[in-house]
């Protein structure tokens, strides 16, 4: 039997959590182990009914009846921790990392996943995690205080289970993101002490993947919004637009919202002519997978655009089509450029045809700022002109002046300088000795234009004027010869004229002087020696004097006739009336003869184109003739008339004299020709010849109408002058 003291000592030293319960079920005593287990002092527990003891759920109870020292019957309650058996195999097979910590948060045990996660060795290290140097951060990456840590909160906060996200900086592995569950456990692990069970999963990789996805999506959107072309993505199964960038609204000038409502709006604004083609291409995308189409599109603001649309499928990892994507590009400028290029090509072709058929050769000739020259363009025809192939002319930068005849270089350089200074066309001609067909004469027609570098470029053409020049030279030579001949001829004529003048002058002077002698001395003989002459002698003297006077008259008429020709006629409008009046006035005394009737019939206001002296002379002669030839008539009738006949003025003198036979019509106008005997009608035969000559000088004419015994009519005709 054990003494009470011994029992008391054993009771207090026992490791089991036990309580003695009396028959009435009231707790009489507890062991220190029980105090620890329930976390309360013995005094707070003794006196409680056994069922009211605050026991954790994880203990097993055992009640045994015992015999008390006083012989009474008591019950002994023994509490044992629930059997949490530690099975490493199961523990290590878990994917999640699991660790046990004691209440001081020292690591007691870690499974395989946790060891891997933390890079720990096989051996359990009972150290505080803090002491490992691992820093912990909250989800905002702020350093985490000890009391905020899930394990601590589970151990001390009485919260039971704690879930949180923690970032742990693990040496050699960087920052790891953990999803952590912490649970306070009364009896734990091999030591069967209370502690904290922590399980965690590392979602760092998952998090990074998500982040990277978010980044790339962000990048894609930024890229799309900045793209010049329209980018779009469609879900073909749902026929829904998933994405279109801002370029759509910019290029189409329409809100994109309509597209999100229905894909039909893709066809908004498409040119009616292209509508079917575009619709067919969009249809074909589902069949063949991709398409490309170009079409015209009209914006609501009236601007028309050319669009090139492309669509293509996007495949998922399973190789099946997930999305349709594409671009729509504004190719208006490209189209315009193409049109311009077409127009340019047409113009170019036209130019080439013109250049090919144009006479001469086109050129672009440039003078640099330093005065040296080069060809920058030449058509093939230039070879025939300059003797150098067009390509070589340009490639070798040949200076025109080097090809020009040395004697012409100075003039060509001067003409280029003048043209450049004045901005005036360059017109020059020069010889080129090196042409294939021998020396050529070239004419340049070019317009200068100032270059950006201070040089000048002439664009224009060269023509081969060799043949023309030759012809011109020939013409010039012929002209010179002709002029020479004309001059010679003129000089000859003038010499003859002078000769004629001096002849008539001599006739006048020299022939008349002896006549004066004949007449003078005959007269003196007659007057001073009449008594020595008989009648016959006096008759001889009278005859001599008559002959001398006739000869004097003849000489005077001859001189008058030749005088008509002298000098140039000065033709001008001339009133006919006053001329007629003056002539009639001059012959007034003869016209006043008895039995002579003069009728004047002159139209008023007649104007001729002629000269006064010529017309006076003609009229006077005709009137004198009429007076002379009517002298034998008892009734002398003379008519003087003038009237306009179309563009001519006709004047006439009609008489009732003896008339003449028209057979002799032409002869009477020749000099010294007479139809009548001198004793019937005196005269020298010069008068009508003078009339004809005077009329010819005035571009007029004279003619007569007569019949023997029926009088005669003489007509003058002159161009009419302007009406006065």
């Amino acid at each position: 039997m054990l003494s009470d003291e011994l029992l008391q000592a054993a009771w207090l030293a026992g490791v089991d959590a036990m309580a003695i319960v009396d028959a009435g079920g009231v707790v009489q005593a507890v062991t220190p182990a029980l105090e620890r287990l329930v976390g309360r002092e013995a005094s707070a527990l003794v006196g409680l009914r056994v069922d009211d003891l605050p026991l954790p759920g994880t203990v097993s109870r055992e009640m045994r009846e015992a015999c008390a020292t006083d012989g009474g019957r008591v019950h002994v309650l023994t509490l044992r921790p629930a059997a949490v058996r530690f099975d490493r195999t199961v523990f290590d097979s878990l994917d999640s990392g699991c660790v046990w910590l004691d209440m001081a948060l020292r690591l007691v045990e870690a499974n395989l996943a946790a060891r891997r996660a933390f890079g720990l060795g096989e051996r359990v290290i009972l150290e505080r995690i803090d002491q490992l140097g691992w820093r912990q951060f909250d989800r905002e990456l702020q350093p985490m205080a000890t009391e905020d840590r899930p394990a601590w909160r589970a151990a001390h906060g009485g919260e039971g289970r704690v879930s949180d996200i923690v970032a742990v900086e693990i040496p050699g592995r960087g920052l790891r993101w953990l999803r952590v569950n912490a649970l306070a456990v009364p009896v734990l692990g091999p030591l069967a002490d209370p502690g904290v069970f922590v399980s965690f999963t590392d979602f760092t990789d998952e998090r990074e993947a998500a982040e990277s996805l978010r980044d790339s999506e962000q990048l894609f959107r930024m890229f799309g919004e900045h793209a010049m072309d329209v980018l779009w993505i469609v879900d073909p199964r749902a026929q829904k637009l998933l994405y279109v960038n801002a370029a759509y609204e910019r290029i189409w000038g329409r809100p994109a919202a309509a597209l999100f409502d229905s894909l039909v709006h893709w066809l908004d604004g498409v040119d009616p002519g292209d509508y079917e083609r575009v619709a067919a291409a969009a249809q074909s995308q589902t069949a063949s997978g991709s398409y490309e189409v170009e079409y015209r599109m009209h914006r609501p603001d009236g601007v028309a655009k050319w669009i090139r649309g492309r669509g293509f499928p996007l495949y998922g990892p399973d190789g099946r089509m997930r999305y349709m994507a594409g671009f729509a590009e504004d190719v208006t400028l490209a189209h315009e450029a193409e049109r311009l290029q077409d127009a340019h090509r047409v113009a170019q072709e036209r130019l080439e045809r013109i250049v090919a058929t144009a006479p001469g050769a086109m050129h672009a000739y440039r003078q640099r700022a330093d005065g040296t020259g080069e060809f920058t363009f030449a058509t093939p025809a230039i070879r025939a002109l300059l003797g150098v192939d067009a390509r070589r002319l340009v490639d070798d930068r040949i200076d025109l002046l080097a090809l020009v005849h040395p004697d012409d270089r100075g003039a060509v350089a001067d003409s280029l300088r003048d043209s450049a200074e004045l901005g005036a066309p360059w017109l020059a001609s020069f010889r080129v000795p090196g042409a294939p067909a021998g020396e050529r004469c070239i004419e340049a027609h070019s317009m200068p234009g100032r270059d950006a570098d201070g040089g000048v470029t002439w664009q224009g053409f060269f023509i081969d004027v060799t043949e023309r020049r030759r012809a011109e030279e020939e013409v010039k030579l012929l002209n010179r010869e002709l002029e020479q001949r004309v001059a010679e001829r003129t000089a000859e004529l003038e010499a003859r004229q002078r000769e004629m003048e001096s002849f008539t002058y001599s006739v006048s002077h020299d022939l008349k002087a002896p006549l004066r002698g004949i007449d003078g001395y005959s007269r003196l003989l007659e007057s001073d020696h009449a008594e020595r002459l008989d009648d016959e002698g006096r008759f001889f003297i009278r005859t001599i004097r008559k002959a001398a006077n006739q000869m004097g008259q003849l000489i005077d008429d001859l001189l008058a006739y030749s005088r008509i020709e002298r000098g140039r006629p000065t033709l001008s409008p001339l009133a006919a009336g006053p001329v007629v009046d003056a002539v009639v006035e001059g012959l007034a005394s003869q016209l006043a003869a008895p039995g002579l009737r003069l009728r004047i019939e002159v139209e008023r206001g007649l104007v001729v184109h002629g000269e006064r002296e010529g017309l006076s002379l003609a009229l006077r002669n005709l009137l004198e003739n009429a007076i002379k030839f009517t002298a034998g008539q008892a009734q002398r009738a003379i008519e003087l008339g003038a009237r306009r006949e179309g563009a001519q003025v006709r004047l006439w003198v009609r008489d009732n004299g003896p008339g003449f036979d028209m057979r002799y019509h032409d002869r009477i106008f020749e000099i010294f020709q007479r139809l009548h005997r001198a004793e019937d009608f005196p005269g020298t035969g010069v008068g009508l010849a003078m009339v004809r000559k005077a009329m010819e000088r005035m571009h007029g004419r004279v003619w007569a109408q007569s019949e023997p015994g029926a009088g005669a009519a003489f007509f003058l005709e002159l161009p009419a002058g302007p009406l006065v």
Partner: protein
Amino acid sequence: MEDRRPILLVEDNPMDVDLTRRAFAKRHIVNPLEVARDGEEALGWIARWEAGEPLPVVVLLDLKLPRVSGLEVLRQLKAHARFSRLPVVVLTTSREDGDVASAYALGVNSYIVKPVEFEKFIDVAAQIDLYWCVLNQT
């Protein structure tokens, strides 16, 4: 009062000189007739007048003269400082417009064409006498 100063006749044709002399005689012209046979001789008279010989009442000047022409004689006479007012009458066979115009341009006092008929020549002499030897001197 009749002026008895001489008449200077410039004439190369001796027959014309003789006829002129006779025509003047027929008209009873008493002025002595001095004769120069060519232009040079006529110009020689200028020196003689300068030396004090009496000036003629009139110079009768033929145009067609040997050596110095009548127009040249006329020009020199009319250009002379002292004798430019001396009356000069051209007496010639030429009725050329050029001669007439030239003579008047040089300041001739009258231009007379010699007639062929002697009676008319006597009339001319009478006119010369009346106008130049009588009327013009008073």
